């Protein structure tokens, strides 16, 4: 499975998040589109394309924020790797599983943010995970996930055929 298209999709999502998604904020929070894409990529293509595209998209995000370089890259890499192992192990329905998986991914991201904030003393992040804004982000991300999953299902490069041995 190639990593070019998954990376391209995730990179475009990262750019969209810093520009166009700013117009659709609710309570100051925008959905985490990159996270949804990484989760989908992991489930459909396995750990390798998901973690590498996550790493690349995360680095792009790091360049656009005041975050320490590597913060988003690390979070996206681990997310891609973790959800890559769920590949072919879950029945992906239209609504319920995308919401469940993306909520799980958001909570995993929150845990990693907490750990990294503690280890690297990232002042800007202290308490951010427990804010109302982050709660809205989790809900908003879950809300858009079925639609994003449906859209990504139409990209052949992200939907390899299953092989049975």
């Amino acid at each position, binding site marked *: 499975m190639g990593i070019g298209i998954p990376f391209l999709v995730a990179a475009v999502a990262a750019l969209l998040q810093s520009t166009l998604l700013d117009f659709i904020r609710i309570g100051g*929070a925008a959905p985490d589109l990159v996270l949804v894409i990484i989760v989908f990529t992991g489930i459909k293509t396995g750990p390798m394309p998901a*973690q590498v595209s996550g*790493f690349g998209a995360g680095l792009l995000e790091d360049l656009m924020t005041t975050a320490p370089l590597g913060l988003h890259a690390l979070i996206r890499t681990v997310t891609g790797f973790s959800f890559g192992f769920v590949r072919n192990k879950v029945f992906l329905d239209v609504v319920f599983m995308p919401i469940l998986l993306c909520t799980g991914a958001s909570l995993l991201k929150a845990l990693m943010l907490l750990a990294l904030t503690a280890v690297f003393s990232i002042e*800007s992040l202290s308490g951010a995970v427990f804010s109302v804004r982050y709660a809205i982000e989790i809900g908003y991300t879950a809300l858009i996930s079925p639609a994003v999953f449906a859209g990504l299902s139409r990209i052949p490069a992200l939907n390899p055929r299953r092989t049975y041995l």
Partner: protein
Amino acid sequence: MKFRTAFDQHRAVVVLAVCVVFSLVTMTFSSTNVVVRPREFGLTVVSAFQSVFTGFGRFIASTINSVAELRELQADYDLLVEQVRRYEGLENDIFELRSEVESLRELLGFSQELQYDNIPAQIIGKDPGNLFGAITINRGSLHGVRTDMPVVAVQGGRQGLVGRVQRAGLTASTVVPLTDRSFYVASRLQRSRYEGLVSGTGAGSETISMRHVDKNARDNIAYGESVITSGLGSLYPRGIHIGTVEGIQARPYETSLELVVRPLVEFAVLEYVFVIRTHG
């Protein structure tokens, strides 16, 4: 051979390890100058894409608005609607252009009125997440922007502090807003003249806080009083408006007051800023 077979078997784990180690190393060193150059280069490249996406977004938004406007007009007019619509369209364009010209004239006026040498800039991107609140502007080191330069904006006819330049790429820079927890500025109450330290309370928060204000100031501080930069320290010039006092918190076990301050600048509608040249 054995090594290669082992690598093939655990390729995903090896790549994960490499990515994680790389991320941790860059995070460790990103507080120093070790990774400043590649990061600035990356910012320059990424900002080009951000400009394109922002332009595209504004084009789409204006197109959608125009379509909605036309639909409303269609309900009101019959036979001459096409002609009237054209004229109305033209009128709207003229109105838009006039307001744009007025807005730009106002900005130009303020730019010339600012007592400090400044670099006008447009916001081309915001933080892709919800945790940091960084702002990307379309001016970089090529235009004279340097790290730690203060950034101000004009809203409602007043000049207010936006933040400071955290990183200057070649043609774009990243600005830390004053709402960020890592942002600090020495400040003063404009009327009562008490000093304090303003700091952010996190991205997304509508207020910031002013700490270390003398407890004796409690009876002299008025709600709505302006908070300005004090000029102490070399980073921010004195007299720049930060916000207005919205609340006073006096805890009996603390020797100083904490004021809740509403920033003058409304970040959600911010489009243009001025970078103040303070050095270099």
